[in-house]
């Protein structure tokens, strides 16, 4: 778990918004919520692969732009009655700097 990569400053990500990190394995969406917490998910809704980075961010969740599934930012789990899980990535803040682990966490399936 020493695979941290600096990806930019927290101010590069709009509040209640998202930016994308390109990787050879596909895009990772990084989010910033109203409390200035950051999260990272594979940019793919477990339902029909909608780009989660393009959704509306609220609380600790993002709503997928394709069919309005609500996905938890911290655990990638679909909320309500929907079933599915987006891959999560470890992400942390050091001051203003954002560090991302491009390897997905083990607790989520691919």
């Amino acid at each position, binding site marked *: 778990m020493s695979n941290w*990569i600096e*990806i*930019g400053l927290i101010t*590069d*990500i*709009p*509040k*209640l*918004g998202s*930016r*994308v*990190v*390109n*990787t*050879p394995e596909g*895009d990772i969406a*990084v989010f910033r*919520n*109203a409390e200035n917490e950051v999260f990272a998910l594979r940019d793919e809704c477990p339902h*029909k*692969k*909608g*780009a989660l980075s*393009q*959704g*509306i*961010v*609220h*609380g600790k969740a993002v*709503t997928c*732009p*394709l069919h*309005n599934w*609500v996905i938890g930012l911290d655990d990638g789990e679909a909320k*309500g*009655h929907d079933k599915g899980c987006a891959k999560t990535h470890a992400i942390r803040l050091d001051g203003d700097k954002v560090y991302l682990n*491009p390897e997905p966490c083990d607790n989520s399936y691919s």
Partner: protein
Amino acid sequence: MKEKLVVIGNGMAGMRTVEELLKVAPEMYDITVFGAEPYGNYNRIMLSPVLAGEKTLEEIMINDRDWYKANNITLYAGPDKKVVNVDRRNKVVIAEDGTEAHYTRLLLATGAHPFLIPVKGHDLKGVVAFRDVADVDAMLDAAQNKQHAVVIGGGVLGLEAANGLKAQGMDVTVVHNIDVLMNRQLDQVAATMLQAELESRGIKFKMNASTTKIKGDAQGHASAISFADGDEIKSDLVVMAVGIRPNIDLAQAIGLHCERGVVVNDTMQSFDPRIYAIGECVQHRGEVFGLVAPIWDQARVCANHLAKFGIANYRSVATTMKLKVTGVDLFSVGDFTGDEHSEELIYQDLKRGVYKKVVLKNDRIIGAVMYGDTMDGSWYFQMMKDGTDISEIRQSMLFGQTYIGDAGHGEANAASNLPDDAEICGCNGVCKGDVVKAITEQNLYTLDEVRAVTKASASCGSCTGLVEQVLIATAGGVYTPSNTEKPLCGCTDSSHDNVRDAIRKQQLKSFHETSEYLEFKNADGCHICRPAINYYLVAAWPGEYEDDMRSRFINERVHANIQKDNTYSVVPRMFGGITTPKDLRAIADVAEKFEVPMVKVTGGQRIDLLGVKKDDLLPMWKDLNDAGMVSGHAYGKSLRTVKTCVGSQFCRFGTQDSTGMGVQIEHMTWGSWTPAKFKIAVSGCPRNCAEATIKDLGVVAVDSGWEIYVAGNGGMKVRVCDFLTKVQTEEDVLEYTGAFMQMYREQGHHNERTAPWIERVGLAYIKDEIVENTEKRQAYHERFLESQKYAQIDPWKQRVEGFDSESFIPLKSL
């Protein structure tokens, strides 16, 4: 240490409150439940089908004992666990066998007692009520070895009991004190039809009867009933089903203020602030309760206060009612008798067994009774709750909603006749069987729950009525129509109109001011309320409120429609659908340069470049901007397109310059945000080649001027426009267009197209505002033009020049 909640009464009301509480505050309380019946929690309403042999007790259990265990609820159930005292000073509940439980808050849900007429012999063996599992067992037992049953009471419960006993093979007579069955719910005609149907099933009736005595045999068992008119009927089973009385025995014994029921305030709190009460045992603003729908509302309110949110208020509203006798379809709501100021619309076809009566007052529905065909009951109920002005549809409304221009589901028959593999929801491919399975296996009670679990009616919504029918047919009387004005979303109890009023009156200028003022549960809302409130703020404070990009749906954020593979579509504006070789060349160049996979002509007379990658959007827009083109807003809740036909400039039939008119209208209206998408068309003669009469606003040229039509829709529910007015000049057309759009902008709910909006508020009102009243029309139009000053900015240009353009660029590439 956690606070302690003790619930007295393990019935539907109490457990529904606990379920609601667990949803919103699962960790707040240690919960203990006392119940006098030795079961988990069952659906009392479904006892009728159990008696009729259509369901078993297991099938009507809502929560078995495992559920209590799984939720860490202590359950004391059984006759010896009946609560006999509450020590309010020390806050302790004491049961018959001495079991004690301390509480910080107490919930009384003791339900009701069946009312037994105190005639001589009412205490004989073989005289039962119809209230709980024990009563049903007694009746089923009697059906095994007795022959003659008399049911006293021709109300809902009595008829259900009679039907059940008949199904069990008994000879059944229903005794009723007047000559109208179910007189609380039905009028004379419907009651007569119902009686004929039940008589054809072999149930006998004795109407206008007054019971004087129940006679017993030597063993102290009922044997016959005698009446005031001297008649006597053999009867070895007597079922008393003449009503219920709130069970306030315990409440009175512990000195809680009671009248007919335990008196509670709007938060379901009794006179002892630590004690809440709910369900059939309460009295709220003078009213007591027997149907399930209001009790569900009470449960939600009560749970909200137990969870200390402190924002919900209970308001009693009209409820609908359904009889659970298989094959009998009836529906009743509100004031179905009316008074000297009301009027009635009646449809009656005795041969087909269909009767519908809708009672109106001031062009609003105040009540309805239906027999035989109840498909549209929920529609009438919805219009009644919404206070919909029905003057425009009164000539056809009795034929049902399918006759009011619903092309999508005109053939859909009563849901109960559909096979399990019939597709109910075409958008999400949900069959009837899926819906039924979800309802029965997961105990769903409301349309919203069914929608969330099955997705049926979750997309376009045109099958909502059908899904509701399946729900009613499956869940029976437990079905809970939403009673209150619909909240905007799950974050708040406020409706769209409440939110808009608050924004205007309280001068709220941001989402956070709005959510704080209205005490939203979630500080930054959700994907439903954020865009809605953003729109309301844009509409209320033009030029002042700064549009919040993060509250806009992706399409409006990137000025392009997101597609299923996360690519986008780019549509340049062509005013009035007119283009030039130069523009077409520029579009062709862009399509080639960016290898656009598909170029398509849209229904609104534009060219759509489909399959564009997000990274290509900015450079494509730049190229199109450089060639003089701007965004076509084909993606927004906004003015989409003004479609035109050729008109007098070339067409040999054209009476006016429809293309010129269309171009002018589009120049005035482009860029405006509206509650939902807004389409306009202009036709050059009554042949109407631009299909203007199914648009949000349609203009049709005639020799002497222009006809203006509004609120049409060619989508999932085809609706032909209403004729608004006829005008003389092009200036008039522009003024009416601006005024109508502004009125819709100011009053339509977010995501509500003009068609449902006009059906909600009524064409007459719109005419009053902008046809009859010149001053108001001009004022609306002025406000429209004022807001356009800030709205007519080409978003492509803005983004190409750098506004928030980093969102199109990856943060980093690894």
